[in-house]
Protein backbone atom coordinates (compact mmCIF):
# COMPACT_ATOMS: atom_id res chain seq x y z
CA UNK A 1 0.00 0.00 0.00
CA UNK A 2 1.91 3.03 -1.20
CA UNK A 3 1.07 6.61 -0.67
CA UNK A 4 -0.23 8.08 -3.89
CA UNK A 5 -0.97 11.63 -4.82
CA UNK A 6 -4.47 12.84 -4.12
CA UNK A 7 -6.06 16.19 -4.82
CA UNK A 8 -8.39 18.61 -3.12
CA UNK A 9 -11.09 18.94 -5.74
CA UNK A 10 -13.37 21.13 -3.69
CA UNK A 11 -13.57 22.97 -0.39
CA UNK A 12 -16.04 24.97 1.62
CA UNK A 13 -15.22 27.11 4.62
CA UNK A 14 -17.92 28.83 6.67
CA UNK A 15 -17.14 31.16 9.54
CA UNK A 16 -18.24 34.60 10.72
CA UNK A 17 -21.28 34.29 8.45
CA UNK A 18 -19.08 34.10 5.36
CA UNK A 19 -19.19 31.18 2.94
CA UNK A 20 -16.10 30.37 0.88
CA UNK A 21 -16.03 27.84 -1.91
CA UNK A 22 -12.74 26.67 -3.39
CA UNK A 23 -10.92 29.57 -1.77
CA UNK A 24 -13.22 32.35 -2.97
CA UNK A 25 -15.82 34.25 -0.96
CA UNK A 26 -19.18 33.12 -2.31
CA UNK A 27 -21.71 34.79 -0.03
CA UNK A 28 -21.93 36.59 3.28
CA UNK A 29 -24.42 37.88 5.77
CA UNK A 30 -24.29 40.51 8.50
CA UNK A 31 -22.16 39.27 11.42
CA UNK A 32 -24.87 40.47 13.82
CA UNK A 33 -27.31 37.75 12.71
CA UNK A 34 -28.13 34.97 15.17
CA UNK A 35 -26.67 31.67 14.01
CA UNK A 36 -30.10 30.12 13.39
CA UNK A 37 -31.12 33.09 11.20
CA UNK A 38 -27.88 32.84 9.27
CA UNK A 39 -28.43 29.12 8.75
CA UNK A 40 -31.95 29.73 7.46
CA UNK A 41 -30.75 32.40 5.03
CA UNK A 42 -27.95 30.13 3.85
CA UNK A 43 -30.47 27.34 3.31
CA UNK A 44 -32.68 29.64 1.24
CA UNK A 45 -29.66 30.79 -0.74
CA UNK A 46 -28.06 27.40 -1.42
CA UNK A 47 -30.78 24.82 -1.12
CA UNK A 48 -34.49 24.96 -0.43
CA UNK A 49 -36.77 22.00 -1.03
CA UNK A 50 -35.35 19.91 1.83
CA UNK A 51 -37.80 20.31 4.75
CA UNK A 52 -35.80 17.91 6.93
CA UNK A 53 -33.18 20.69 7.21
CA UNK A 54 -35.35 22.65 9.65
CA UNK A 55 -35.49 19.70 12.03
CA UNK A 56 -31.71 19.34 12.24
CA UNK A 57 -29.60 20.65 15.07
CA UNK A 58 -27.09 23.47 14.31
CA UNK A 59 -24.19 21.01 13.95
CA UNK A 60 -26.02 19.00 11.30
CA UNK A 61 -27.27 22.15 9.57
CA UNK A 62 -23.73 23.51 9.32
CA UNK A 63 -22.19 20.31 7.99
CA UNK A 64 -25.11 19.65 5.68
CA UNK A 65 -25.00 23.19 4.22
CA UNK A 66 -21.25 23.14 3.68
CA UNK A 67 -21.57 19.77 1.91
CA UNK A 68 -24.39 21.23 -0.17
CA UNK A 69 -22.26 24.20 -1.26
CA UNK A 70 -19.19 22.07 -1.91
CA UNK A 71 -20.85 19.17 -3.71
CA UNK A 72 -22.98 21.36 -5.96
CA UNK A 73 -19.88 22.04 -8.05
CA UNK A 74 -18.11 18.72 -7.51
CA UNK A 75 -18.49 15.69 -9.81
CA UNK A 76 -19.38 13.40 -6.91
CA UNK A 77 -21.64 11.25 -9.09
CA UNK A 78 -18.44 9.86 -10.69
CA UNK A 79 -18.03 7.80 -7.51
CA UNK A 80 -19.92 4.74 -6.34
CA UNK A 81 -21.99 5.47 -3.20
CA UNK A 82 -20.00 2.79 -1.31
CA UNK A 83 -16.75 4.50 -2.27
CA UNK A 84 -17.47 7.93 -0.80
CA UNK A 85 -16.10 8.25 2.75
CA UNK A 86 -16.75 11.01 5.29
CA UNK A 87 -14.31 11.83 8.08
CA UNK A 88 -15.15 14.80 10.29
CA UNK A 89 -13.89 16.23 13.53
CA UNK A 90 -14.65 18.99 16.01
CA UNK A 91 -14.02 20.25 19.50
CA UNK A 92 -17.40 20.21 21.23
CA UNK A 93 -18.85 16.94 19.91
CA UNK A 94 -22.66 17.34 20.23
CA UNK A 95 -22.50 19.28 23.51
CA UNK A 96 -24.45 22.23 22.04
CA UNK A 97 -27.43 19.93 21.46
CA UNK A 98 -26.81 17.76 24.55
CA UNK A 99 -27.36 20.82 26.75
CA UNK A 100 -30.57 21.81 24.99
CA UNK A 101 -31.86 18.25 25.26
CA UNK A 102 -30.91 18.16 28.94
CA UNK A 103 -32.98 21.30 29.51
CA UNK A 104 -36.07 19.56 28.15
CA UNK A 105 -35.60 16.54 30.43
CA UNK A 106 -36.97 18.49 33.41
CA UNK A 107 -40.28 18.92 31.56
CA UNK A 108 -40.90 16.48 28.70
CA UNK A 109 -37.74 15.05 27.11
CA UNK A 110 -37.71 16.07 23.46
CA UNK A 111 -37.46 13.12 21.04
CA UNK A 112 -36.47 15.48 18.22
CA UNK A 113 -33.50 16.83 20.20
CA UNK A 114 -32.53 13.43 21.59
CA UNK A 115 -31.84 11.98 18.15
CA UNK A 116 -29.19 14.66 17.57
CA UNK A 117 -27.25 14.03 20.78
CA UNK A 118 -24.36 12.36 18.94
CA UNK A 119 -21.77 14.25 16.87
CA UNK A 120 -21.73 11.75 14.00
CA UNK A 121 -25.40 12.40 13.17
CA UNK A 122 -24.18 15.21 10.90
CA UNK A 123 -22.42 12.54 8.82
CA UNK A 124 -25.66 10.59 8.63
CA UNK A 125 -27.57 13.65 7.42
CA UNK A 126 -25.03 14.26 4.64
CA UNK A 127 -25.15 10.56 3.68
CA UNK A 128 -28.94 10.52 3.58
CA UNK A 129 -29.02 13.65 1.41
CA UNK A 130 -26.44 12.40 -1.13
CA UNK A 131 -26.90 8.64 -0.81
CA UNK A 132 -23.32 8.02 0.34
CA UNK A 133 -22.66 4.59 1.83
CA UNK A 134 -18.89 4.56 2.39
CA UNK A 135 -16.80 4.42 5.55
CA UNK A 136 -17.14 7.23 8.04
CA UNK A 137 -15.65 8.43 11.29
CA UNK A 138 -16.01 11.39 13.63
CA UNK A 139 -13.13 12.55 15.84
CA UNK A 140 -13.20 14.93 18.78
CA UNK A 141 -10.05 16.99 19.33
CA UNK A 142 -8.96 20.35 20.72
CA UNK A 143 -8.51 22.17 17.45
CA UNK A 144 -8.53 21.73 13.69
CA UNK A 145 -5.65 19.44 12.77
CA UNK A 146 -4.77 19.49 9.06
CA UNK A 147 -2.26 16.63 9.45
CA UNK A 148 -4.89 14.39 11.01
CA UNK A 149 -7.45 15.23 8.31
CA UNK A 150 -4.98 14.46 5.53
CA UNK A 151 -3.45 11.33 7.05
CA UNK A 152 -6.78 9.63 7.77
CA UNK A 153 -8.37 10.47 4.42
CA UNK A 154 -5.17 9.52 2.59
CA UNK A 155 -5.23 6.13 4.30
CA UNK A 156 -8.80 5.50 3.09
CA UNK A 157 -7.84 6.45 -0.47
CA UNK A 158 -4.59 4.45 -0.45
CA UNK A 159 -6.18 1.31 0.94
CA UNK A 160 -8.88 1.38 -1.74
CA UNK A 161 -11.65 1.73 0.84
CA UNK A 162 -12.79 4.97 -0.81
CA UNK A 163 -12.28 6.79 -4.07
CA UNK A 164 -13.46 10.11 -2.62
CA UNK A 165 -13.37 11.42 0.92
CA UNK A 166 -15.29 14.36 2.31
CA UNK A 167 -13.26 15.44 5.30
CA UNK A 168 -12.66 18.31 7.68
CA UNK A 169 -14.06 20.17 10.66
CA UNK A 170 -17.61 21.01 11.80
CA UNK A 171 -17.76 22.79 15.13
CA UNK A 172 -20.54 24.63 16.92
CA UNK A 173 -21.10 25.72 20.50
CA UNK A 174 -23.90 28.20 21.04
CA UNK A 175 -23.18 31.09 18.62
CA UNK A 176 -19.55 30.09 17.99
CA UNK A 177 -19.08 27.93 14.95
CA UNK A 178 -16.67 27.01 12.20
CA UNK A 179 -16.86 24.63 9.24
CA UNK A 180 -14.08 23.59 6.87
CA UNK A 181 -14.89 20.76 4.47
CA UNK A 182 -12.60 19.33 1.81
CA UNK A 183 -13.24 16.84 -0.95
CA UNK A 184 -10.20 14.65 -1.57
CA UNK A 185 -10.03 12.53 -4.70
CA UNK A 186 -7.44 10.56 -6.59
CA UNK A 187 -8.04 12.35 -9.89
CA UNK A 188 -6.65 15.72 -10.68
CA UNK A 189 -9.36 18.11 -11.81
CA UNK A 190 -9.28 21.67 -13.00
CA UNK A 191 -8.22 24.00 -10.22
CA UNK A 192 -7.38 21.14 -7.86
CA UNK A 193 -4.39 21.41 -5.55
CA UNK A 194 -2.41 18.59 -3.96
CA UNK A 195 -4.05 17.01 -0.90
CA UNK A 196 -1.38 17.97 1.61
CA UNK A 197 -1.54 19.41 5.11
CA UNK A 198 -0.02 22.65 3.83
CA UNK A 199 -2.74 23.14 1.18
CA UNK A 200 -5.48 22.17 3.63
CA UNK A 201 -4.15 24.72 6.11
CA UNK A 202 -4.06 27.39 3.42
CA UNK A 203 -7.71 26.81 2.48
CA UNK A 204 -8.72 26.59 6.13
CA UNK A 205 -7.04 29.88 6.97
CA UNK A 206 -8.87 32.04 4.45
CA UNK A 207 -10.29 35.13 6.08
CA UNK A 208 -12.36 38.08 4.96
CA UNK A 209 -10.34 40.69 3.10
CA UNK A 210 -7.49 38.33 2.29
Amino acid at each position, binding site marked *: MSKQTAYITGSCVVRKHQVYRNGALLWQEAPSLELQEFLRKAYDRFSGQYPKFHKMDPLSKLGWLAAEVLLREAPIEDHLPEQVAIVLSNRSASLDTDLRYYNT*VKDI*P*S*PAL*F*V*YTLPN*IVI*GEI*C*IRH*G*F*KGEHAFFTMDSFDAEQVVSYAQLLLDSGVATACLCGWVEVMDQQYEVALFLAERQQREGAVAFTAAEVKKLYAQQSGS
Partner: protein
Amino acid sequence: MSSQAWIAGGGVICGIGANLQQCLEAFRQMGTGMQEIQYLQTTHRGIFPVAEVKADNTALAAQAGMPAHLSRTALLSRIAAQEAWEAAGLGDISQYRVGFVSANTVGGMDKTEDFFTDYLQNPQQGGHLRQVMHHECGSVTELVADAMGIRHHVSTISTACSSGANALMYGARLIRNNMVDVVIAGGTDALTRFTLNGFNTLMILDQQPCRPLDDTRTGLNLGEGAGYVVLVSDALAARLPNGPWCRLSGYANANDAYHQTASSPEGTGNYLAMKGALTMSGLQPQDIGYINVHGTGTQNNDSSEGKAIERLFAPDYPPVSSTKSFTGHTLGASGGIEAVFSALAVQQGIIYPNARFTTPMKEWPVAPATVFSGGNRLDHVMSNSFGFAGNCSSLIFSKG
Protein backbone atom coordinates in the same frame (compact mmCIF):
# COMPACT_ATOMS: atom_id res chain seq x y z
CA MET B 1 -5.54 -21.06 3.00
CA SER B 2 -7.07 -18.99 5.74
CA SER B 3 -8.52 -20.67 8.78
CA GLN B 4 -12.20 -21.03 9.60
CA ALA B 5 -13.51 -19.54 12.84
CA TRP B 6 -14.88 -22.22 15.20
CA ILE B 7 -16.94 -21.74 18.34
CA ALA B 8 -15.11 -23.50 21.17
CA GLY B 9 -17.41 -22.39 23.99
CA GLY B 10 -19.60 -19.65 25.37
CA GLY B 11 -20.68 -17.90 28.54
CA VAL B 12 -23.69 -15.76 29.46
CA ILE B 13 -24.92 -13.75 32.41
CA CYS B 14 -28.25 -11.96 32.03
CA GLY B 15 -31.66 -11.43 33.61
CA ILE B 16 -32.54 -15.13 33.42
CA GLY B 17 -29.36 -16.63 34.80
CA ALA B 18 -25.88 -16.10 36.18
CA ASN B 19 -24.44 -18.64 33.73
CA LEU B 20 -25.42 -20.46 30.55
CA GLN B 21 -26.80 -23.51 32.37
CA GLN B 22 -29.14 -21.35 34.45
CA CYS B 23 -30.30 -19.56 31.30
CA LEU B 24 -31.13 -22.86 29.60
CA GLU B 25 -33.08 -23.96 32.64
CA ALA B 26 -35.02 -20.68 32.55
CA PHE B 27 -35.93 -21.27 28.89
CA ARG B 28 -37.12 -24.78 29.72
CA GLN B 29 -39.25 -23.49 32.61
CA MET B 30 -40.49 -20.43 30.68
CA GLY B 31 -38.99 -18.30 33.46
CA THR B 32 -38.59 -14.81 31.98
CA GLY B 33 -36.35 -12.16 33.55
CA MET B 34 -38.62 -9.12 33.64
CA GLN B 35 -39.36 -7.69 37.04
CA GLU B 36 -39.85 -4.39 38.76
CA ILE B 37 -36.56 -2.42 38.89
CA GLN B 38 -34.57 -3.61 41.88
CA TYR B 39 -30.94 -2.51 41.62
CA LEU B 40 -30.93 0.56 39.35
CA GLN B 41 -31.46 3.88 41.14
CA THR B 42 -34.11 5.65 39.08
CA THR B 43 -37.35 7.57 39.35
CA HIS B 44 -38.82 5.07 36.87
CA ARG B 45 -38.83 2.26 39.43
CA GLY B 46 -42.24 0.62 39.49
CA ILE B 47 -43.11 1.96 36.04
CA PHE B 48 -40.98 0.06 33.55
CA PRO B 49 -40.25 -3.64 34.01
CA VAL B 50 -36.62 -4.58 33.21
CA ALA B 51 -34.57 -7.77 33.10
CA GLU B 52 -31.81 -6.99 35.59
CA VAL B 53 -29.07 -9.41 36.56
CA LYS B 54 -30.32 -10.48 39.97
CA ALA B 55 -27.28 -9.50 42.03
CA ASP B 56 -25.82 -6.30 43.43
CA ASN B 57 -22.34 -5.06 42.51
CA THR B 58 -20.75 -6.50 45.65
CA ALA B 59 -21.93 -9.98 44.75
CA LEU B 60 -20.96 -9.56 41.09
CA ALA B 61 -17.51 -8.27 42.07
CA ALA B 62 -16.93 -11.35 44.23
CA GLN B 63 -17.98 -13.59 41.35
CA ALA B 64 -15.82 -11.66 38.88
CA GLY B 65 -12.82 -11.40 41.17
CA MET B 66 -12.64 -7.66 40.54
CA PRO B 67 -13.05 -4.60 42.84
CA ALA B 68 -16.68 -3.67 43.58
CA HIS B 69 -16.11 0.02 42.77
CA LEU B 70 -15.70 -0.79 39.06
CA SER B 71 -18.50 -0.37 36.55
CA ARG B 72 -21.16 -3.05 36.53
CA THR B 73 -20.53 -3.29 32.76
CA ALA B 74 -16.99 -4.56 33.48
CA LEU B 75 -18.11 -6.98 36.22
CA LEU B 76 -20.73 -8.59 33.97
CA SER B 77 -18.21 -8.77 31.14
CA ARG B 78 -15.58 -10.57 33.20
CA ILE B 79 -18.05 -13.14 34.55
CA ALA B 80 -19.35 -14.16 31.11
CA ALA B 81 -15.92 -14.02 29.43
CA GLN B 82 -14.45 -16.25 32.14
CA GLU B 83 -17.29 -18.74 31.77
CA ALA B 84 -16.76 -18.80 28.01
CA TRP B 85 -13.04 -19.40 28.42
CA GLU B 86 -13.58 -22.26 30.86
CA ALA B 87 -16.24 -23.82 28.61
CA ALA B 88 -13.68 -24.01 25.81
CA GLY B 89 -11.39 -26.08 28.02
CA LEU B 90 -8.22 -24.56 26.63
CA GLY B 91 -6.47 -24.26 29.99
CA ASP B 92 -3.82 -21.63 30.62
CA ILE B 93 -4.71 -18.48 28.68
CA SER B 94 -1.09 -17.30 28.60
CA GLN B 95 -0.21 -20.23 26.30
CA TYR B 96 -2.02 -18.72 23.31
CA ARG B 97 -2.16 -15.62 21.17
CA VAL B 98 -5.50 -14.35 22.48
CA GLY B 99 -7.71 -11.51 21.30
CA PHE B 100 -10.56 -9.89 23.25
CA VAL B 101 -13.18 -8.13 21.16
CA SER B 102 -15.86 -6.78 23.44
CA ALA B 103 -18.85 -4.65 22.55
CA ASN B 104 -20.70 -2.24 24.80
CA THR B 105 -22.75 0.91 24.43
CA VAL B 106 -22.70 2.46 27.91
CA GLY B 107 -19.14 1.91 29.13
CA GLY B 108 -18.79 3.06 32.72
CA MET B 109 -21.88 5.28 32.54
CA ASP B 110 -23.32 3.76 35.73
CA LYS B 111 -20.39 5.09 37.77
CA THR B 112 -20.44 8.43 35.95
CA GLU B 113 -24.08 8.84 36.97
CA ASP B 114 -23.16 8.17 40.60
CA PHE B 115 -20.41 10.75 40.33
CA PHE B 116 -22.69 13.46 38.99
CA THR B 117 -25.33 12.87 41.63
CA ASP B 118 -22.74 13.60 44.32
CA TYR B 119 -20.91 16.29 42.39
CA LEU B 120 -23.98 18.37 41.58
CA GLN B 121 -25.08 18.31 45.21
CA ASN B 122 -21.74 19.66 46.30
CA PRO B 123 -19.57 20.92 43.42
CA GLN B 124 -16.72 21.80 45.81
CA GLN B 125 -16.23 18.39 47.35
CA GLY B 126 -18.85 15.97 46.05
CA GLY B 127 -18.02 13.01 43.85
CA HIS B 128 -14.81 11.05 43.37
CA LEU B 129 -13.10 11.46 40.02
CA ARG B 130 -12.17 7.79 40.28
CA GLN B 131 -15.81 7.12 39.36
CA VAL B 132 -15.47 8.65 35.88
CA MET B 133 -12.08 7.13 35.05
CA HIS B 134 -13.63 4.22 33.21
CA HIS B 135 -16.47 6.14 31.57
CA GLU B 136 -15.24 5.41 28.06
CA CYS B 137 -16.45 2.20 26.40
CA GLY B 138 -12.94 0.98 25.59
CA SER B 139 -11.83 1.35 29.19
CA VAL B 140 -14.32 -1.31 30.28
CA THR B 141 -12.85 -3.75 27.75
CA GLU B 142 -9.30 -3.02 28.91
CA LEU B 143 -10.18 -3.61 32.57
CA VAL B 144 -11.47 -7.07 31.70
CA ALA B 145 -8.62 -7.87 29.30
CA ASP B 146 -6.13 -6.98 32.05
CA ALA B 147 -8.00 -9.07 34.62
CA MET B 148 -7.93 -12.06 32.28
CA GLY B 149 -4.36 -11.59 31.15
CA ILE B 150 -5.23 -10.95 27.49
CA ARG B 151 -2.49 -9.02 25.70
CA HIS B 152 -2.36 -9.75 22.00
CA HIS B 153 -5.31 -7.88 20.59
CA VAL B 154 -7.90 -5.89 22.54
CA SER B 155 -10.67 -3.99 20.79
CA THR B 156 -14.04 -2.42 21.60
CA ILE B 157 -17.01 -2.12 19.26
CA SER B 158 -19.92 0.23 19.79
CA THR B 159 -22.50 0.15 17.01
CA ALA B 160 -25.67 0.24 19.11
CA CYS B 161 -27.67 -2.99 19.20
CA SER B 162 -25.56 -4.73 16.56
CA SER B 163 -22.36 -4.24 18.61
CA GLY B 164 -22.10 -7.76 20.02
CA ALA B 165 -22.64 -9.43 16.64
CA ASN B 166 -20.08 -7.13 15.05
CA ALA B 167 -17.59 -8.18 17.74
CA LEU B 168 -17.92 -11.79 16.52
CA MET B 169 -17.40 -10.68 12.93
CA TYR B 170 -14.28 -8.78 13.90
CA GLY B 171 -13.03 -11.70 15.97
CA ALA B 172 -13.57 -14.14 13.10
CA ARG B 173 -11.52 -11.92 10.82
CA LEU B 174 -8.67 -11.90 13.33
CA ILE B 175 -8.71 -15.72 13.24
CA ARG B 176 -9.03 -15.93 9.46
CA ASN B 177 -6.06 -13.63 9.02
CA ASN B 178 -3.98 -15.62 11.52
CA MET B 179 -3.43 -12.60 13.75
CA VAL B 180 -4.35 -14.59 16.86
CA ASP B 181 -5.21 -18.21 17.72
CA VAL B 182 -8.18 -17.51 19.98
CA VAL B 183 -10.63 -14.64 20.34
CA ILE B 184 -13.11 -14.10 23.14
CA ALA B 185 -15.81 -12.12 21.33
CA GLY B 186 -19.17 -10.78 22.42
CA GLY B 187 -20.61 -7.90 24.38
CA THR B 188 -21.64 -6.47 27.72
CA ASP B 189 -23.92 -3.71 28.97
CA ALA B 190 -25.21 -2.79 32.42
CA LEU B 191 -28.53 -1.04 32.82
CA THR B 192 -28.10 2.67 33.49
CA ARG B 193 -30.34 5.67 34.00
CA PHE B 194 -28.93 7.12 30.78
CA THR B 195 -30.18 4.16 28.74
CA LEU B 196 -33.54 3.94 30.43
CA ASN B 197 -34.18 7.68 30.01
CA GLY B 198 -33.03 7.66 26.40
CA PHE B 199 -35.34 4.82 25.42
CA ASN B 200 -38.11 6.49 27.39
CA THR B 201 -37.59 9.69 25.36
CA LEU B 202 -38.17 7.64 22.22
CA MET B 203 -41.33 6.25 23.84
CA ILE B 204 -40.48 2.65 22.95
CA LEU B 205 -40.45 1.16 26.45
CA ASP B 206 -43.34 -1.13 27.29
CA GLN B 207 -44.80 -0.69 30.76
CA GLN B 208 -45.82 -4.36 30.62
CA PRO B 209 -43.57 -7.35 29.95
CA CYS B 210 -42.71 -7.02 26.25
CA ARG B 211 -44.40 -9.07 23.51
CA PRO B 212 -41.99 -9.46 20.58
CA LEU B 213 -43.42 -10.71 17.26
CA ASP B 214 -46.92 -10.23 18.66
CA ASP B 215 -49.53 -7.98 17.09
CA THR B 216 -50.31 -6.54 20.54
CA ARG B 217 -46.67 -5.49 21.17
CA THR B 218 -46.19 -1.95 22.48
CA GLY B 219 -42.45 -1.67 22.97
CA LEU B 220 -39.38 -3.28 24.47
CA ASN B 221 -38.09 -3.99 27.98
CA LEU B 222 -34.46 -3.20 28.68
CA GLY B 223 -32.21 -5.85 30.12
CA GLU B 224 -28.56 -6.14 31.07
CA GLY B 225 -25.88 -8.77 30.92
CA ALA B 226 -22.95 -10.08 28.93
CA GLY B 227 -22.34 -12.91 26.50
CA TYR B 228 -19.16 -14.17 24.83
CA VAL B 229 -18.11 -16.98 22.56
CA VAL B 230 -14.59 -18.33 22.23
CA LEU B 231 -13.53 -18.35 18.57
CA VAL B 232 -10.62 -20.56 17.58
CA SER B 233 -8.64 -21.42 14.44
CA ASP B 234 -8.72 -24.76 12.58
CA ALA B 235 -5.54 -25.87 14.35
CA LEU B 236 -6.90 -25.18 17.83
CA ALA B 237 -10.35 -26.55 17.03
CA ALA B 238 -8.74 -29.91 16.28
CA ARG B 239 -7.17 -29.94 19.75
CA LEU B 240 -10.27 -29.04 21.79
CA PRO B 241 -10.95 -31.68 24.45
CA ASN B 242 -14.69 -31.78 23.65
CA GLY B 243 -14.53 -30.59 20.07
CA PRO B 244 -16.02 -27.30 18.84
CA TRP B 245 -19.70 -26.44 19.27
CA CYS B 246 -20.00 -25.30 15.68
CA ARG B 247 -18.51 -23.00 13.08
CA LEU B 248 -19.23 -19.32 12.43
CA SER B 249 -19.82 -19.93 8.73
CA GLY B 250 -21.22 -16.61 7.60
CA TYR B 251 -21.69 -13.03 8.68
CA ALA B 252 -22.53 -9.68 7.18
CA ASN B 253 -23.49 -6.22 8.24
CA ALA B 254 -25.36 -3.54 6.34
CA ASN B 255 -27.00 -0.22 6.94
CA ASP B 256 -30.28 1.32 5.88
CA ALA B 257 -28.96 4.91 5.77
CA TYR B 258 -32.57 5.79 6.49
CA HIS B 259 -32.93 7.46 9.90
CA GLN B 260 -30.99 8.27 13.10
CA THR B 261 -32.88 5.69 15.13
CA ALA B 262 -35.52 3.88 13.08
CA SER B 263 -35.15 0.99 10.65
CA SER B 264 -36.46 1.54 7.14
CA PRO B 265 -40.07 0.29 6.93
CA GLU B 266 -39.11 -2.32 4.31
CA GLY B 267 -36.18 -3.56 6.42
CA THR B 268 -33.64 -3.01 3.64
CA GLY B 269 -30.62 -3.24 5.96
CA ASN B 270 -32.07 -6.35 7.65
CA TYR B 271 -32.53 -8.02 4.29
CA LEU B 272 -29.03 -7.13 3.09
CA ALA B 273 -27.39 -8.40 6.30
CA MET B 274 -29.21 -11.76 6.22
CA LYS B 275 -28.60 -12.20 2.49
CA GLY B 276 -24.92 -11.28 2.87
CA ALA B 277 -24.44 -13.83 5.65
CA LEU B 278 -26.12 -16.55 3.55
CA THR B 279 -23.92 -15.72 0.57
CA MET B 280 -20.77 -15.91 2.66
CA SER B 281 -21.67 -19.30 4.10
CA GLY B 282 -22.71 -20.56 0.64
CA LEU B 283 -26.21 -21.44 1.88
CA GLN B 284 -29.74 -21.06 0.57
CA PRO B 285 -32.50 -19.62 2.78
CA GLN B 286 -34.07 -23.08 3.14
CA ASP B 287 -30.82 -24.40 4.70
CA ILE B 288 -31.43 -22.31 7.85
CA GLY B 289 -33.00 -24.43 10.59
CA TYR B 290 -33.81 -21.72 13.13
CA ILE B 291 -33.54 -17.92 13.35
CA ASN B 292 -32.88 -16.20 16.64
CA VAL B 293 -34.45 -12.92 15.53
CA HIS B 294 -33.64 -9.43 16.78
CA GLY B 295 -37.32 -9.11 17.79
CA THR B 296 -37.25 -6.24 20.28
CA GLY B 297 -40.99 -5.81 20.59
CA THR B 298 -41.14 -2.30 19.12
CA GLN B 299 -43.61 -1.64 16.32
CA ASN B 300 -40.88 -0.51 13.98
CA ASN B 301 -38.30 -3.27 14.49
CA ASP B 302 -40.59 -6.24 14.39
CA SER B 303 -42.52 -5.15 11.32
CA SER B 304 -39.32 -4.27 9.40
CA GLU B 305 -37.66 -7.54 10.40
CA GLY B 306 -40.76 -9.54 9.48
CA LYS B 307 -40.93 -7.95 6.04
CA ALA B 308 -37.24 -8.62 5.42
CA ILE B 309 -37.61 -12.27 6.48
CA GLU B 310 -40.63 -12.66 4.22
CA ARG B 311 -38.74 -11.16 1.29
CA LEU B 312 -35.80 -13.53 1.78
CA PHE B 313 -37.42 -16.75 2.99
CA ALA B 314 -40.89 -16.95 1.39
CA PRO B 315 -42.56 -19.37 1.00
CA ASP B 316 -40.71 -21.75 3.39
CA TYR B 317 -39.94 -20.36 6.81
CA PRO B 318 -37.71 -21.86 9.50
CA PRO B 319 -38.83 -21.70 13.15
CA VAL B 320 -38.08 -18.31 14.71
CA SER B 321 -38.17 -16.79 18.20
CA SER B 322 -37.01 -13.72 20.06
CA THR B 323 -35.11 -14.61 23.23
CA LYS B 324 -35.50 -10.94 24.20
CA SER B 325 -38.93 -11.98 25.46
CA PHE B 326 -36.88 -13.58 28.30
CA THR B 327 -33.72 -11.48 28.61
CA GLY B 328 -35.05 -8.08 27.66
CA HIS B 329 -33.03 -6.03 25.20
CA THR B 330 -29.48 -6.02 26.51
CA LEU B 331 -28.25 -3.60 23.80
CA GLY B 332 -24.50 -3.98 23.26
CA ALA B 333 -24.58 -7.37 24.96
CA SER B 334 -27.51 -8.76 22.99
CA GLY B 335 -25.52 -9.82 19.92
CA GLY B 336 -23.05 -11.66 22.18
CA ILE B 337 -25.68 -13.31 24.38
CA GLU B 338 -27.75 -14.41 21.40
CA ALA B 339 -24.64 -15.66 19.58
CA VAL B 340 -24.00 -17.98 22.54
CA PHE B 341 -27.65 -19.14 22.50
CA SER B 342 -27.51 -19.67 18.71
CA ALA B 343 -24.17 -21.52 18.72
CA LEU B 344 -25.45 -23.80 21.47
CA ALA B 345 -28.64 -24.28 19.44
CA VAL B 346 -26.60 -25.83 16.63
CA GLN B 347 -24.67 -28.08 19.02
CA GLN B 348 -27.70 -29.31 20.97
CA GLY B 349 -30.50 -28.85 18.43
CA ILE B 350 -32.29 -26.27 20.55
CA ILE B 351 -35.18 -24.10 19.44
CA TYR B 352 -35.84 -21.44 22.04
CA PRO B 353 -39.33 -20.33 22.98
CA ASN B 354 -40.80 -16.88 22.44
CA ALA B 355 -42.60 -15.93 25.66
CA ARG B 356 -46.06 -14.33 25.93
CA PHE B 357 -46.98 -14.88 22.27
CA THR B 358 -50.73 -14.72 21.63
CA THR B 359 -51.59 -12.80 18.46
CA PRO B 360 -49.89 -13.20 15.07
CA MET B 361 -48.63 -10.03 13.39
CA LYS B 362 -49.83 -9.01 9.96
CA GLU B 363 -46.25 -8.27 8.88
CA TRP B 364 -44.75 -11.48 10.23
CA PRO B 365 -45.06 -14.53 8.00
CA VAL B 366 -45.06 -17.28 10.66
CA ALA B 367 -45.88 -17.56 14.35
CA PRO B 368 -42.78 -17.94 16.55
CA ALA B 369 -41.91 -21.10 18.49
CA THR B 370 -43.51 -20.92 21.93
CA VAL B 371 -42.04 -23.94 23.70
CA PHE B 372 -38.48 -25.04 24.38
CA SER B 373 -37.28 -28.04 22.40
CA GLY B 374 -33.90 -29.77 22.26
CA GLY B 375 -32.51 -32.51 20.06
CA ASN B 376 -33.83 -30.97 16.83
CA ARG B 377 -31.71 -31.50 13.75
CA LEU B 378 -30.24 -28.06 13.17
CA ASP B 379 -27.40 -27.72 10.69
CA HIS B 380 -27.47 -23.95 10.37
CA VAL B 381 -28.79 -21.28 12.75
CA MET B 382 -29.07 -17.57 12.00
CA SER B 383 -28.79 -14.86 14.66
CA ASN B 384 -29.97 -11.32 13.85
CA SER B 385 -28.92 -8.10 15.56
CA PHE B 386 -30.55 -5.06 14.06
CA GLY B 387 -30.17 -1.74 15.67
CA PHE B 388 -30.49 1.97 15.93
CA ALA B 389 -29.54 3.95 12.87
CA GLY B 390 -30.16 0.89 10.70
CA ASN B 391 -27.00 -0.89 11.86
CA CYS B 392 -27.85 -4.47 10.91
CA SER B 393 -25.79 -7.64 11.39
CA SER B 394 -26.53 -11.31 10.81
CA LEU B 395 -24.46 -14.30 11.89
CA ILE B 396 -24.79 -17.93 10.75
CA PHE B 397 -23.59 -20.83 12.89
CA SER B 398 -23.13 -24.19 11.17
CA LYS B 399 -22.35 -27.80 12.09
CA GLY B 400 -18.76 -28.92 11.35
